[in-house]
């Protein structure tokens, strides 16, 4: 069973606030990913990382930023939250040379 954690699970916040969504995995996976999922919609890749100090933007443009200072940790930050950022954010990881991504439980963000 995959060990990948996301906090918080739910977040309600006002416009203009800075937020950081946490994602950690204990499997030693080198690749990590962030997906955005609007209600009833497909997932879109917004960021990914192939290892420490490596980050890339995904297929869907996002105002969020990410960092990868440690292998196990891949936080996502929004400097100034807006209602358009309301969505579910899913973190995933995979081991180099394998194809399977393991997903965390997600963070549901509501920006008022």
């Amino acid at each position, binding site marked *: 069973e995959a060990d990948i954690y996301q906090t918080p699970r739910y977040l309600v916040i006002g416009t203009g606030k800075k937020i950081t969504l946490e994602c950690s995995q204990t499997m030693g996976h080198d690749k990590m*990913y962030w997906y955005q999922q609007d209600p009833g919609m497909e997932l879109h890749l917004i960021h990914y990382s192939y290892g420490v100090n490596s980050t890339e933007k995904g297929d869907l443009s996002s105002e969020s930023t990410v960092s990868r200072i440690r292998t196990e940790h891949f936080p996502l930050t929004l400097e100034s939250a807006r209602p358009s950022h309301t969505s579910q954010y899913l973190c995933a990881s995979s081991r180099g040379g394998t194809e399977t991504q393991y997903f965390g439980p997600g963070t549901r963000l509501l920006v008022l």
Partner: protein
Amino acid sequence: AQSVTQLDSQVPVFEEAPVELRCNYSSSVSVYLFWYVQYPNQGLQLLLKYLSGSTLVKGINGFEAEFNKSQTSFHLRKPSVHISDTAEYFCAVSAKIKAAGNKLTFGGGTRVLVKP
């Protein structure tokens, strides 16, 4: 680039009846194929995957899928569903090239509602 189309957005089905969820993909390179399930308020869980070899793939919870290269399809089936199978199901692909970095492209999802 890849794209994935799940032909049914919702599939209502009675308990103990069979179900098939359809998935078609488009890609200029060979791909790996996946089915994930998402239960309410949870993340995604891998049901099964096709990497190579036999085109019939068996997964968890009694699900199976068949890869059809000529029709670029990867349909998911279960012969007898349970109430607990009520969930959203996502088909996904990733390109079989190292440079792609295992990035997944998802379909729009199919919501399965199992009725008693």
